[in-house]
């Protein structure tokens, strides 16, 4: 085949599928002549085989931004009751202003229980999740590098704490494509208020734009300018599109060697169809009352996060590869009882509902669910007013849990020291967590690479190892 032909076809199908990546549910192949459809079957978002066999095909990533306290949720530290309010001083140039000076230990205001057959540790205020612990693998050994929110968020989301790298969802869709060609492969469901570090938390970095996380905004337009101006009907828009098409067609005939023109024309047609499709996916009325109730929808404090969890399930069901759901902020420097208490009340039932719902639909096997923050919290606190019992940031210890396809459910892996200050068993840098998550999805971090800036880049940055204890 002469290079020109193949080049053209490449370019065309690449564009089409890039568009498909952010478009509504139009059967793309229907738009193409048969030979094109054939050629188009290897677009950038076409489902691809991973490097390894795996149970999990999709991923729902529950990002508890702000840094939830492991000590007050899943990693009880009775020793802190003894040490409660004991004061000490910490100095040294290896310490931040936050960690140094006068400190005091803070016991957890939450009581713990052993739940499920596995006897997992869980704070008593997780009433709903307690019933799901046998499906969960808790991991207490992860450590990160950064103590600031955005840099730690970037590291958890992209592997690179300085930002600018592709998010895990981008890597996964780059590696596996996405089952539904007519929706983005990587969708983000943020809080109304974006987390620190903003949209770079779901950016495609140096990967092509097709792999960018698409945020569906919880209020207002789910996608900016998805709808035309008020008063503009579809017929009205169609007329504009028709004039545009005729001008573009004449122009293209004068520039037959310019491949981008056709792709840009197609983009307009596909966008036009997408306007129709997205609202249906967001329509919760398609769910029965029992399901809405399960997630705590239409009542506080669970409505907001419940809707996002249910939408996550709907998206995965519709063939979206990777969904990230945000809840926060867990940054409880003061009054942790009240702050964490309220947050747990708002996420406990929706998370349990998500696990239950996935399970009963047979989707849990093929879906990897991850719950984590960007770091854990410290057993001690600065003297913030003396009695404001809260906790500072702690990159040395945290709890992450996973459920679903391929995880070592019903086990707690790793351990922190007696105060929860530092991971001491099965300790791994977050890069190993990334390698493990990719592994669970059938991807080998060392092979999932992209050549950029002079080297093959990868999610783990420089490679890492699978934490085999987390895998069933």
């Amino acid at each position, binding site marked *: 085949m002469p290079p*020109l032909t193949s*080049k053209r076809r490449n370019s065309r199908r690449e*564009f089409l599928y*890039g568009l498909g990546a*952010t478009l509504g549910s139009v059967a793309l192949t229907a738009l193409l002549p048969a030979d094109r459809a054939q050629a188009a079957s290897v677009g950038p978002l076409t489902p691809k085989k991973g490097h390894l066999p795996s149970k999990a095909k999709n991923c729902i990533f529950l990002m508890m931004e702000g840094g939830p306290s492991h000590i007050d949720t899943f990693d009880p530290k009775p020793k802190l009751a003894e040490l409660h309010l004991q004061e000490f001083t910490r100095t040294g*140039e*290896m310490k*931040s*202003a936050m960690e140094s000076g006068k400190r005091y230990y803070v016991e957890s205001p939450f009581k713990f229980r052993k739940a499920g057959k596995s006897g997992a540790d869980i704070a008593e205020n997780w009433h709903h999740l307690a019933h799901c612990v046998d499906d969960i693998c808790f991991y207490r050994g992860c450590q990160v590098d950064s103590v*600031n929110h*955005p840099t730690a968020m970037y590291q958890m989301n992209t592997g690179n704490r300085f*930002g*600018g790298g592709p998010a895990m969802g981008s890597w996964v869709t780059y590696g596996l494509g996405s089952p539904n060609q007519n929706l983005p492969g990587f969708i983000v469901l943020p809080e*109304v*208020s*974006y*987390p*620190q570090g903003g*949209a*770079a938390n779901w950016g495609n970095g140096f990967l*092509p734009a*097709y792999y960018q996380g698409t945020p569906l905004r919880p209020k*207002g337009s789910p*996608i*900016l*300018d*998805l709808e035309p101006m008020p008063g503009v009907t579809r017929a*009205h828009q169609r007329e*504009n599109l028709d004039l545009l098409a005729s*001008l*573009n067609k004449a122009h293209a005939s004068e*520039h037959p*060697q*310019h491949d*981008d*023109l056709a792709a*840009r*024309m197609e*983009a307009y047609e596909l*966008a036009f169809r*997408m306007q129709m499709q997205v609202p249906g996916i967001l329509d919760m009325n398609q769910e029965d009352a029992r399901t809405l109730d399960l997630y705590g929808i239409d009542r506080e*404090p669970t409505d907001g996060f419940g809707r996002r969890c249910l939408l996550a399930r709907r998206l995965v069901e519709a063939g979206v590869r990777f969904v990230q759901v945000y809840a926060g*902020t*867990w940054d*409880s420097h003061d*009054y942790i009882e*009240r702050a964490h208490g309220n*947050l747990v009340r708002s996420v406990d039932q929706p998370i349990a509902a998500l696990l239950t719902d996935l399970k009963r639909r047979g989707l849990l096997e093929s879906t990897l669910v991850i719950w984590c923050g960007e770091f854990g919290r410290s057993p001690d606190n600065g003297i913030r*007013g003396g*009695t*404001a019992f*809260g906790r*500072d*940031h702690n990159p040395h210890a945290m709890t992450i849990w996973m459920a679903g396809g391929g995880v070592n459910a019903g086990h707690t892996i790793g351990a922190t020291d007696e105060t929860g200050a530092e991971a001491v068993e099965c300790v791994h840098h977050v890069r190993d967590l990334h390698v493990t998550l990719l592994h669970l999805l059938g991807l080998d971090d060392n*092979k999932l690479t992209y050549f950029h*800036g*002079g*080297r093959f880049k*990868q999610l783990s940055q420089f*490679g890492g190892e699978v934490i085999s204890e987390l895998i069933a």
Partner: protein
Amino acid sequence: MTLHRSVRARLQSVIVAGTLLSLCAVPVFAEDASIRAEKLFANRVLGMFKTKCFVCHGEDAEDLRGEFNMLSLDGLLKGGESKTPSIVPGKPEESPLYLAVQWRDLEMPPKENDRLTEEQIRYLKEWILGGAPWPNEARRTELVQDAENEWNVTNGVTVQTSGGLIDEWTQRQYEPEHLWAYRPLRIDATEGWANESSHPIDWFINRRIAELELDAAPAADRRTLIRRATFDLIGLPPTPEEVTRFVDDPLPDDRALTKVVERLLASPHYGEQWARHWLDVVRYADSSGYANDYERGNAWRYRDYVVRAFNEDKPYDQFVREQIAGDEIAESNEELLIAAGFLRMGPWELTAMEVPKVARQRFLDDVTDAVGQVFLGHMLQCARCHDHKFDPVPTRDYYSMQAIFATTQLAERKAEFLPKENRDGFEERQYLQERQAFYEKALRDLNKKRSVEAAHAWFKEKGLDPTKFNVALGELKEKSEDTQPKVSFDQVRKLLQKRGTHPDLIPPRHVGFEARDFGMERIARKGIERLKWRLQRYQPIAFSVYSGRTPKLKSVNAPLPIPEEPMKTGELEETCILAGGDPFSPTTPVTPGVLSAANTLSDVSADDASIPTGIVGRRLALAEWIVSERNPLTSRVMVNRIWQWHFNQALAGNPNNFGTTGKKPSHPELLDWLAWTFMKEGWSVKSMHRLIMSSETYRRASQHPQPKTLALQDPNGISYARFRPRRLEAEELRDAMLSVSGELNPAVGGIPVRPEMNMEAALQPRQVMGTFAEAWQPSPLPRQRHRRSLYALRLRGLRDPFLQVFNAPAPDLSCEAREASNVTPQVFALFNSEISFDRAIAMANRVLKEKSSGERTIDRLFRLAFGRVPKPDETEACLAHWDRMTTRHRGLTFAPPAYPREVVREAVEENTGERFTFVEPLEMYADFVPDLKASDVGPELRGLAEVCLVLLNSNEFAYVY
């Protein structure tokens, strides 16, 4: 001696072969092959094993991956846990090791980055074929010495550097072709040109085109040319009048174009367009990024400095000096202090959460790498933790370069405004002062809630004994001399704490606060902190640096002045090689220095490269080394960028990476000749434009007469046989829309403006450290909003979605080249948005106001948008559309726009975990004057606006040919 060696070699090879024989029963190899294999082993294979394999398979005896030890031939023959030998001497295809390095069956080394090159795989194959000899150390030394010349000449060269962390690295060899960027400029290749009359650029380019047996495309027509040249140089479309003048110019193409180029180079907008390119590379933004994303109130002065530098055709060497060492050249020169802001363009902050030394190190790493990428085409950060994997940049060089910045300190420095700086619009300060008053009042109100009464209520609610509190309160009242003593809650609380009262019996400091009060308190307190940065904008301050000792900082929450005694207080940093890049793991100390390979491989003299060790003057010396005419990197890097910004592709394909992994130059002789000419022309960037734009190569059409042949002969499109079309960059697209709609305010320079952004994005709450960032409020007046996109406030944490979808790069990493991907959100932004429709209305209004009608209207629209008249069927289609749309619009009514005066923020409060809302005032909307809106105009104009919208969305508008 020679005889002795060769005898020993022979003996040894016999021994080795004998060993193999006994183990594997392979035949004895011919002497030549086995000696060749020995040489290979000593010179190539062992080193490769060391760098690629031993880490997992030998070095750590406790942790042998796959139980496979490669430290000896025995280990290789024993194999790993599979118990099969990893090599079968003489039979590479049966050797699992050989298969594994090709990623057949096993995949080793497992990381893509560590994979063996084809050449390394060949060495391994040849070694196995030659019987896989493993001579002992003494013999290997001999073989290395013996072979030195032969190997160096045939297979690579060693590069003299300051030395690697390990000897193998220091001794390693490079393919000569990877070292091109360090070699002195080669201008002898132009000899053949001297006798020709053609343009030198064409001579180089056409020579290659001829080699490929291609024809070059003919010259583009004049309409295409002027559009190309105008977008290239000023980033705006030519006006219809300019097009006509050029098309009608009786002079031949080249001379007529020269006139256009001169006019454009003299335009103040030239500097804007080329500054925009430069700001991509240096990562310009008006905020700090990360957790706080504080505004950098004075960064705009650096942006305008860059605009001036291009407009004044500041010699590039001077431009480099000023940005690296402006403050060291002359401390009293405002312009130079502003220029040094370059060193701080990366994102940076120091919060109380962060270890100060780590944050300092982040700055040092950032600035070292930035200088490497921007000026030298080197990704230096690769050498932070280990000697560079591909390039002759040892970690020692990295830290020597970094030592230059060890005395560079960040400061907001006093620098009076210059007469040439645009100081319009400073009155917007009043809005910030209004906000400040709002926050201050909020704090006062909140403080009232934290009352003694609230404390009493707290005791009651908790069922706690208030006695101690009341006793303390009584005592404080008694002490007071007032008749009606006022004792604050804080006073009582302090006293209780002083007395060591049990914490349970001390009400919390925020007693009386409801959930929203916690949130509001934080918002007001942090809001005042954030305003400090924003209010700096109108002060005669430069975002700059100074040379001095490193001050002790805990966190940086306000602009940093220069300390009183910058040379005496603080630490005089001693730079060491940092193990793993960790500032707490210093190893060998280094002195300030430059890239050693760039000196040894080129003609740079030792004097050029010497950096003083005093506190002041290190950066200036670095700058002088960078711009030394003997430094081969600098001029190549810059002409390569200039070329790219003209042709939409660079000669060396990775302008920030001239190393091994960067793309090699497609026309190395041309690149060198341009670099040499650039210096010869006094580093004049404008001279380079004149040179490039006067070539036939630049004037070529984008259509090639034999597209199939072209595709065959030049599949990667690097022959320049035709001109490569490009999509307008994000800012060009917006500016072009404002230009054709007649709304563009052509003012140059000044404080950043805030164009209208999609309202939902503008009001999207966004968390920054401990609070929300301020809403994006558009500048109140249309003429402020309709400035060029270059002047739009560039926040790292909130990017304009319009610019973002059209591939404007995030200012975190240096952007060497824009992308032009084609994704649907672009359609939503350009076709659906109100902002687009506003441009369409303005354009329609402009043309109708010119008293045109019917066909003449359409004619005018096409001339504005495309620089040509419409064809009859286009006119007809547009007129019919106008008509239909006017009818449609007769049935539509548009409400006048309502602008918010405040925005309700909803978030989870971090102290309470409860949702709370906060009402942020939007002060600027009080004076907001909207653009011409659908509600302001009749159906006929709106109908025409629909035609305009289509034109603005068309491919002809979006691409430059």
